C-alpha cells in the first residue's frame, strides 16, 4: 500500500508547523526537538506507544502545555489564531445529562463565548448539515450520555468541525472502538480532510488501521520524532535509529508489523508488548 502524496500546486503555508518543540516535565524530556508540518487536506498520523509523548504533543499544539523549547504555529486563513477542532480521548458523560446529540453539536458554534443563543433556523440547518456529514442523523435526538462509543465519536467530530477549523486534532480516536467502527471513523476523517481541505492530525498506537489513508506520519518514540511518508519512516533502519536499538519491520499481507526488542541500554527501555503493533 503506498501512501498518497500531495497534489501539485503552489506552495502554501502549512496549517500546522511544529519546529523543534521540546517539553520538559519533572526533569524528564517528554518531547525532544520534534519537528513536522501538516498542510490543509493532509491526513497525518501521530504514531507511538503509550508514554511516547503523543498526548503531550497534542496538548502543546492546543496551547495547553507550555513548550520548554522550539515553537508551534497554527495558521488560519484569516490570520485568526487557534481555529483548531479537538476531539479528546476519554469523554465520560453522565447518562442522564440533559443534552441531545444535536445540542452538543450546536454547542460547537460559539460554545466558548459568553451568553446564550436564541433558536435560529440557520443554525439548526447548519447542525443538520454536520450531523449528516458524520452520519449521525439516526441518533441526533438521543441523549448524548447514552450513545455508544462510536456514535459519541461522530458527535464529537461534528462538534469540532462545526466551527470550521482548519486543523482537526484527535487524541486516540480508535482506542475504544471495535475494528469496523474504527474503519468507519478513519474513512469519515479522510473524507473530511479531502473534501473540506481540513488538516487532520490524529494519534494512535496502531498504524495499520490508518495505512489506507495516511498521507504522512509522525512516529514518536520516547519524545523523539521521525516524520515522512509511511514508506520513508516505517523502515528498520529509520526506526532502529529512533528507538536507539534494533527494530524489525515486517510486512505481512499489506500490513506492517513493528517489533521492538527489550532495551539494550537502560536509558531507552521500551517494553516489548508496548511496541509490537499488529493490524
Amino acid at each position: 500500500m503506498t501512501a498518497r502524496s500531495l497534489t501539485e500546486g503552489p506552495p502554501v503555508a502549512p496549517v500546522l508547523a511544529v519546529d523543534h518543540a521540546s517539553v520538559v516535565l519533572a526533569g524528564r524530556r517528554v518531547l525532544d526537538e520534534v519537528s513536522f508540518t501538516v498542510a490543509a487536506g493532509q491526513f497525518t498520523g501521530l504514531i507511538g506507544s503509550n508514554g511516547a509523548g503523543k498526548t503531550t504533543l497534542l496538548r502543546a499544539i492546543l496551547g495547553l502545555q507550555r513548550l520548554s523549547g522550539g515553537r508551534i504555529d497554527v495558521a488560519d486563513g484569516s490570520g485568526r489564531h487557534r481555529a483548531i477542532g479537538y476531539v479528546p480521548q476519554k469523554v465520560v458523560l453522565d447518562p442522564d445529562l440533559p443534552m441531545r446529540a444535536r445540542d452538543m453539536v450546536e454547542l460547537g458554534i460559539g460554545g466558548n463565548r459568553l451568553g446564550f443563543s436564541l433558536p435560529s433556523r440557520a443554525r439548526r440547518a447548519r447542525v443538520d448539515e454536520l450531523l449528516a456529514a458524520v452520519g449521525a442523523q439516526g441518533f441526533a435526538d438521543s441523549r448524548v450520555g447514552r450513545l455508544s462509543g462510536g456514535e459519541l465519536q461522530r458527535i464529537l467530530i461534528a462538534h469540532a468541525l462545526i466551527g470550521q477549523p482548519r486543523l482537526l486534532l484527535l487524541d486516540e480516536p480508535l482506542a475504544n472502538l471495535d475494528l469496523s467502527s474504527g474503519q468507519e471513523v478513519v474513512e469519515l476523517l479522510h473524507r473530511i480532510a479531502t473534501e473540506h481541505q481540513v488538516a487532520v492530525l490524529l494519534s494512535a498506537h496502531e498504524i495499520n488501521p490508518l495505512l489506507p489513508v495516511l498521507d504522512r506520519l509522525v512516529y514518536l518514540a520516547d519524545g523523539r520524532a521521525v516524520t515522512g511518508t509511511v514508506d520513508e519512516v516505517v523502515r528498520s533502519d529509520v526506526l532502529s535509529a529512533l528507538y536507539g536499538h534494533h527494530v524489525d519491520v515486517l510486512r505481512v499481507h499489506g500490513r506492517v508489523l513493528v517489533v521492538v526488542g527489550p532495551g539494550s541500554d537502560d536509558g531507552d527501555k521500551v517494553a516489548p508488548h508496548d511496541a509490537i503493533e499488529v493490524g
Partner: protein
Amino acid sequence: MFSGFMTNAWIVATMVAVVAGVVGLFVVLRGDAFPAHAIPNGAFAGAAGAALIGANELLGLGVFAVAAALTIGWLGRRGRHDVVTALALVMMLALGAAFLSHTTEYSQEIFSLLFGEVLGVSTTALAPVALLGAGCLIAVGALYRPLLLSSSLPDVAAARGVHNHLIEMAFLVILALATAMTVPVVGSLLIFSLMVGPPAAARVLASRPSRAITLSVAIALLTAWFSIASSYWSNWPIGFFVGVYSAAVYGVAKGGALLHARLRAPTPVLAVSAAA
C-alpha cells in the same frame, strides 16, 4: 394563607425557587452538590457574625457565603476538591458557633437561620433579595454556553480557550449569592435541597438543556409553594417540607424513568441469524 403577612413569604419563595431552579441545574450538572451544601454554612456564619456586630444580616450572609465560595474554589485547585469543601464547611460552622456563643441569640433565631422561617423576610428586604436574584439569573445567562461546555466537555472547553477554573470560581460565587438570598426563608441547611432535588428530577425528565432549566424552575416552584402551604397549615418548620418534598420529587422522577425504560425495552430474545 394568602393574606397580609404571608404575602411576603409567597413572593420570596417564588423568587427563591426560580433562582434555585436555574442555579441548581448547573449544580447538578457539575456535580457540585457538596459545595452547594457547604457554602450556605458560610452564609450561616455570616448571619451570626452580622448579628454579633449589629450589621445588616443580608450583607453578612452575602460576604461570608462569597468568602466560602472563593476559599473552596481557590484551595480546591491545589488540594482535593472534596477535602477542601469539607474543611471549609466545618470551619464556617465553627466560626458561626463562635460568633453565636458571644451573642445573646435565642435558640429560636438560630433555628430559623438553620432551618428556615416562612415569615423570615420583611418587606424592606424584598427589594435587595429581588436584586440579588436578578443578578444571579443574569450572571447564569451570561455564562450559559461556557458553563454548559465546561460542565460536559471540559477538555474540549480548555482547548477552545475556556478557562475552566475561572468558570468554576464564577459559578461558585453565583452559587454563594443565590444562597445568600434564599437562606432567610429556607434556611442555611436546606437551601441546597431545593438546588439538588428539583433540578435532578428535571434532568431525568428533560433531554435538552432549555427544557431542563424550565422544568427545573417549575418543579422548584411547586416544591417551594407546597412547602410553604404545608408549613403554614401544620406549623412544622418549612425546612422539613423542602427537604422531604425535594427528595420525593427526585425519587418519583428517577423511579418513573427507570420504570419507563424497563417497559420500553422488550425482554431480549436470543436471535439466531441465518448462517451466511
